[in-house]
């Protein structure tokens, strides 16, 4: 596929994106450094498990839905979660592939991207509905929570339509403009929004894994699981 578009759209797809991406990276770097500067609670107790193994295991928790009751008992919710997040990666990936390596966005590849975007759009609608109607979710929801999920859902829809025209050899459409304008907004907005949770995810998981792993709660099969008093 070729990305035969006007100079203006190309400018939006490339230079503008790079500037916004740099801004996002700086904001994330500040967030990460701020957290890294916080003191880590000490662990001077004799360990029963391996804190490093615990941290790795905890980071990969996302791929082990059976490890948490909340996902184990709710595999449908977990499947939605996985599809949604794969779609996020693909949609953001598309904003790089289209201007930089359009030849990769062949019709079969484009269709795969579109399938995930369509599914994620439907999942997004379901999540909005859930946030609005399930009392225990509604009570904890802030406007940012609603805005984030609505934004993502619209983003998937826009991406889907833009790719539909792309598939039909119409790389420059109003939809593609909207898609990239949204991407621009995303890059500027996300560091301030809950959507940036993926930056915090490793911190939370590593903290959890080090604590519970070291105590032999989560990585029982790692070395030194059975702490033995001598008789």
């Amino acid at each position, binding site marked *: 596929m070729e990305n035969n578009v006007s100079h203006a759209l190309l400018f939006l797809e490339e230079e503008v994106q790079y500037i916004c991406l740099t801004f996002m990276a700086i904001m994330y770097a500040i967030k990460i450094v701020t957290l890294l500067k916080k003191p*880590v609670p000490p662990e*001077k107790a004799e360990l*029963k498990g391996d804190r490093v193994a615990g941290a790795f295991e905890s980071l990969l928790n996302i791929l082990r839905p059976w490890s948490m*009751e909340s996902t184990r008992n709710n595999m449908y919710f977990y499947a939605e979660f996985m599809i949604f997040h794969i779609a996020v990666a693909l949609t953001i990936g598309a904003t790089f592939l289209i201007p930089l390596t359009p030849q990769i966005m062949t019709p079969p590849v484009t269709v795969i991207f579109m399938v995930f975007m369509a599914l994620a759009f439907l999942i997004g609608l379901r999540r909005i509905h859930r946030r609005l109607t399930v009392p225990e979710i509604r009570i*904890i929801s802030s406007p940012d*929570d609603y805005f984030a999920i609505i934004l993502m859902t619209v983003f998937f829809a826009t991406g889907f339509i833009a790719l539909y025209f792309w598939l039909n050899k119409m790389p420059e459409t109003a939809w593609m403009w909207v898609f990239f304008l949204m991407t621009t907004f995303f890059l500027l907005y996300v560091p301030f929004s809950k959507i940036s949770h993926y930056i915090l995810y490793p911190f939370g998981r590593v903290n959890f894994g080090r604590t519970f792993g070291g105590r032999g709660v989560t990585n029982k099969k790692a070395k030194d699981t059975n702490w*033995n008093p001598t*008789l």
Partner: protein
Amino acid sequence: MSEKAIKLGAEKERQWPTKTEFTPEMLAEMEKLLPSKLNRVVAASLAGCIHCGMCSDACHYSVSIPEDKTLVPAYKADRFRKWYKSRYDWLAKVFPSFVGAQPLTKELAEEMYDKLFGGCTMCRRCTLNCPMGVDYGMMVRAARSIMQQVGRVPQHLQDTVDTHYNAGNNMAVPQDEMIETIEWIEEELQDEDGCENFKIPVDKKGAKYFLTLNPREPKYYPLTIQATAKVLNAAGIDFTISSRYWDLTNYALFNGNDPDAKLFSMWQVEDVKRLGCEYLLAGECGHGYRALRWELPNWVGGVPFKITSVLELFAKLIRENRIKLDKSVWDGHRFTYHDSCNIARSGGIWEEPRTIIRAAANDFVEMEHHGPESFCCGGGGGALAMPEFTPRRIAAGKIKADEIRATGANVCLQSCHNCTDQLKEIIEHYHIDAKVMNLAELLAPALIL
């Protein structure tokens, strides 16, 4: 008596000044304290919640009291998080309500008090089920710590800590009374068949194990000391009980006061060193085990001895055939076991109790949720020391009561004195025909001597 009674606890007595409501001065002080409580775990836990709601079914409060949606974990934590966001969230500087930020007001602080003292036992079951790894144990303790510093802390909880501070144990048992109690228990033990030579050594220098107790034992449950001592004697374990800092509880874990937590730990460390013991041995107490085994080394900066629990020791005695048991003494009884959150989920011990139970009894049935996934009974986090929240505590114990009932057990075993009291209350309240026992009480009658 091994020595002349000495004054235990801090030299100068104190009564922490508590307050019944937040004042503007207290709120200003809390604003100053907040940054000092934000270590990496607390900060990531406050910033990292995505309001997915996956923890809602994990908490015994929200599961047992489904009609009150303000008891879901994320809502409770948000009482603290809103304040945190108002200080540290970038977007909150411009659009506070958009991100759910709220400056610390008297109303918000009162909600925080209600939900984080009276609506959370810091059991960390939600943490286990949170995709973001939000650590409620650490986060809620940080919030409690800030409130306690300015005097807004449940009176009875603070009294428990103050008593420990003033008397060296949380029930103000004087040294001479403790020694007399142990001597009396030793006599009772020696009256049992086959136990004529059994001893409960007090202040024995160089003993291998320094056995610690929950003050409820000498005060109300001396038979549990007798049962523990019987098992240790039967196995030929070289142990002692100190006449000084034998109390393994540390309620400063619950009110969040770090200097007190450290002080109580320090007393115990010095006492183990005084007697030259190799092991500090936690008796059957949930938070006490966690406070000794996992928190004490951090509070005091490391220790020159090992720390273990009677559960680990009993399991080891069974695995190595150091004690022989006759299971038939418990025929006709069906047992289930409640895992204390601080022993299992925050302590890594859940296989050992099962080793013990299976060695001593034939009929053992697990509750639906057990091991690290066990529901809190509702008595953790100092909840039993907060009478103002008693109705909610009993209501929150419903899920545990339902699970006990479903096993058909007539004995609910556990290894924690807070759990004992809560389980007894909910078993009575929810009309379950079962009694509550700890593991030493299970083992002692089954010993073949």
